[in-house]
């Protein structure tokens, strides 16, 4: 073993000891390269999900049923844009540029959550998204508030504070529809039918099939496994569906007295894989909308930079 490997081993051991002692890692601290790369991948994908996540809901902005609902939906979508920004800026502390992250998203190299590749067909979908999709996101994000990487953990705390309104407004929409006319209740049920399984997929593959999970747990990037979080979400959500008088589309869903948790049916992992690899209902549409928005905004960014340069030059001249 040469001196360099020796050195590296010592640094890694010190790093792990710090993590084990629940100390946070900050941007300029030494960290293993794989830790850095894992975080860049996870955090940038998280950021992309917040940004692409605005698209399915944006579909209903002009058609929300009242001014009140429109204002609420606008505020929620605006929050998601903010979440994207918090996360991009936290990821930038790891040494990757914003442009490079955008590049990775636009070329398909980086992924975002599969859930946003499903279409929003009716207004009830906006309720189901807030209730289920934001609910699942909150379950994931609460666990990330104690992530070992300081900037990620801090962004998560800020985001979690804002998410609670997202889920509540969604549930309120579902409540209104479930207590409405027969057609409205059917719409709510239909939305639940379509969003339930894709929401469960948001927690990722089963632990037995999740290669990177163990390492992430050791580094305390993750605190709870995919299956633990999924179970937590299901146990919290089933009573909420019962209160609405809606039926969760899973015949195997049953309370297990012994486990103190709900048993549930098998997720269609083939569908999950298809959506991950680009063949969901809306993959192409989402990516195209995202790229068009970015390219379409280029002249604004260019003009802002040119204006700033002109102003700086004038100031220098006057001085």
């Amino acid at each position, binding site marked *: 073993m040469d001196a360099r490997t020796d050195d590296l081993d010592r640094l890694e051991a010190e790093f792990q000891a710090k993590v084990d002692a629940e100390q946070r890692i900050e941007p300029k601290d*030494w960290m293993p390269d794989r830790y850095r790369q894992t975080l860049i991948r996870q955090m940038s994908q998280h950021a992309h999900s917040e940004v692409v996540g605005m698209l399915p809901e944006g579909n209903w902005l002009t058609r929300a049923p009242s001014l009140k609902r429109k204002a609420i939906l606008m505020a929620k979508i605006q929050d998601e844009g903010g979440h994207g920004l918090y996360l991009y800026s936290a990821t930038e502390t790891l040494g990757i540029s914003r442009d490079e992250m955008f590049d990775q998203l636009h070329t398909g190299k980086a992924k975002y959550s599969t859930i946003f590749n499903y279409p929003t067909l009716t207004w009830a979908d906006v309720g189901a998204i807030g209730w289920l999709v934001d609910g699942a996101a909150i379950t994931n994000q609460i666990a990330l508030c104690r992530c070992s990487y300081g900037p990620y953990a801090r962004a998560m705390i800020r985001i979690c504070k804002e998410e609670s309104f997202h889920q509540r407004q969604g549930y309120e929409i579902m409540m209104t529809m479930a207590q409405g006319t027969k057609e409205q209740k059917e719409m709510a049920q239909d939305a639940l039918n379509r969003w339930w399984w894709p929401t469960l997929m948001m927690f990722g593959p089963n632990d037995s099939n999740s290669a990177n999970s163990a390492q992430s747990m050791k580094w305390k990037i993750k605190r709870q496994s995919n299956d633990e979080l999924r179970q937590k979400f299901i146990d919290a959500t089933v009573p909420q569906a019962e209160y609405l008088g809606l039926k969760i589309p899973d015949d195997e869903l049953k309370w297990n007295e012994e486990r103190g948790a709900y048993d549930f049916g098998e997720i269609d992992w083939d569908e999950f894989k298809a959506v991950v690899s680009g063949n969901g209902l809306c993959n192409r549409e989402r990516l195209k909308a995202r790229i068009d928005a970015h390219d379409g905004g280029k002249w604004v960014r260019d003009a802002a930079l040119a204006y700033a340069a002109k102003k700086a030059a004038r100031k220098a001249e006057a001085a």
Partner: protein
Amino acid sequence: MTKDTRDELPLYEVFIRSKNGLDHKHVGSLHASDSEMALTNARDVYTRRSEGVSIWVVKSTDIVASSPEDRGSFYEPSDDKLYRHPTFYDLPDEVGHM
């Protein structure tokens, strides 16, 4: 790893005073073409729920930071001066709280 970032709007760090009487605290960063845009963007992104009464923005490149490797030597001058702490002094209980 970082590709050419010349076309990127410059990065600003954002500090917010949540209410009078408290210090400004670092909350995150954002890209903006100039300080004016940085301020309005900071307002839009970081104070959507009245989280602040005052905002500072500063170009990230203008911040000078100590480096973590210095942790030992840089702070050493204070390490051996235990007499700067109140617990260094043994006073009898009869004196009461001091």
